């Protein structure tokens, strides 16, 4: 009796439950994008597939000498929990590497890097 009732309730719940893409945070879009040549950007913005934990998500932008171009920390905008932004100082022409690390809300850590050039 109990099993039959729980079975029916669970089936109803299953029919009502939308499919969800549970995963770790991977890049959906980045500005500047990887391997592009752009005018000096004001910020780096990376959109991920999952909501992020701001306290353990970061972006570091390094110049060709490997030095970070700013001491500022990346932030997760309150209206965009899947995005990570870092405000940049005026960047001279050259090659830059973006290093990112995230902790998604589901507890998974991911990280990576890519390059872009300022003309």
């Amino acid at each position, binding site marked *: 009796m*109990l*099993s039959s009732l*729980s*079975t029916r309730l*669970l*089936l109803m*719940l*299953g029919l*009502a*439950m*939308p*499919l*969800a*893409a*549970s*995963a*770790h945070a*991977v890049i959906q879009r980045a500005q500047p994008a990887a391997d592009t040549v752009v005018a000096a950007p004001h910020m780096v913005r990376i959109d991920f597939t*999952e*909501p992020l*934990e*701001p*306290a*353990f998500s970061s972006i570091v932008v390094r110049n060709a000498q490997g030095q970070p171009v700013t001491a500022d920390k990346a932030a997760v905008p309150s209206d965009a929990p899947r995005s990570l932004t870092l405000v940049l100082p005026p960047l001279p022409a050259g090659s830059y590497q973006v290093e990112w690390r995230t*902790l*998604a*809300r*589901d*507890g*998974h*850590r*991911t990280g990576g890097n890519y390059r872009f050039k300022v003309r």
Partner: protein
Amino acid sequence: MPGWLAGWAMAAAATLQPAALGALLSARLIGRPLPWNRRVGCGVVAIAAAGLAGDMLLAALALGAGDEAPFAGTLWLSLTATHAGLLRLAAVPAVLVLWFDCVRQPDGRPGWPGCLAALAMLLARAAGGHVADAVDPLAALTVHGLHLSAIALWSGSVLAAALAGWRSSAAPAGLARRLSTLATTTLPVIALTGALNWQRMQPMVGLWRWHGYPLWLSVKLGAALAALALGAWNRWRHLPNDDTAPMPDAAAFWRILRLEALLLALTLLLGARLGASAPGA
């Protein structure tokens, strides 16, 4: 600590909680046939607390790996500024309620406050991991909370019987029958919620490679099915129809039950590992 070892250490710590909480809940549900006392009850709560503490420390260690920040700061930040950390903090008052309830009860079995606290801890565990980024977190939490609670009940009852009940139960056939009833009641819930969890993970299946997540999921399912087959075999082969009748081969029954307990402990361990693994990995 290497990443793979940290992952398994976290899973081991996380396994202690559902195992201990399931044992405590089943001590209340099974009642007198399962030998229990205040010392055993408090010991099992201490195991759940140790699992929670280990989970907190290992998560902070993993988050701080490669950083120069002091560990205490990382621990505090991981507990107060992350979804999973806040859930772990929320489990602290629940474990205290469970402890005081078991101390208060003459037989060490949790009363209603303790049972509610144990369920709250299981829900807090279920709310972390992949549930946190589901499109409909409430539905995902309901499904996974039921799944984890039902598996904890099945595993916890078998583990408690295998560790505490087999030597000293006054009515082993009665205990075996209640274990069997508990398992039979939880199985439809486990199967259905497992299928719904599988449905939720479907969009990621295309990303799977044959290691990590899909491998552990397969082994987990295999271990659960083997435990189920052993339990069914034990019931039909060794359990007399009358609770008061002597069991024809009690030694064989408890031997099979201990094997079932091992398989269920493996199921819990792999379940915890899956909760901390990326499905696409």
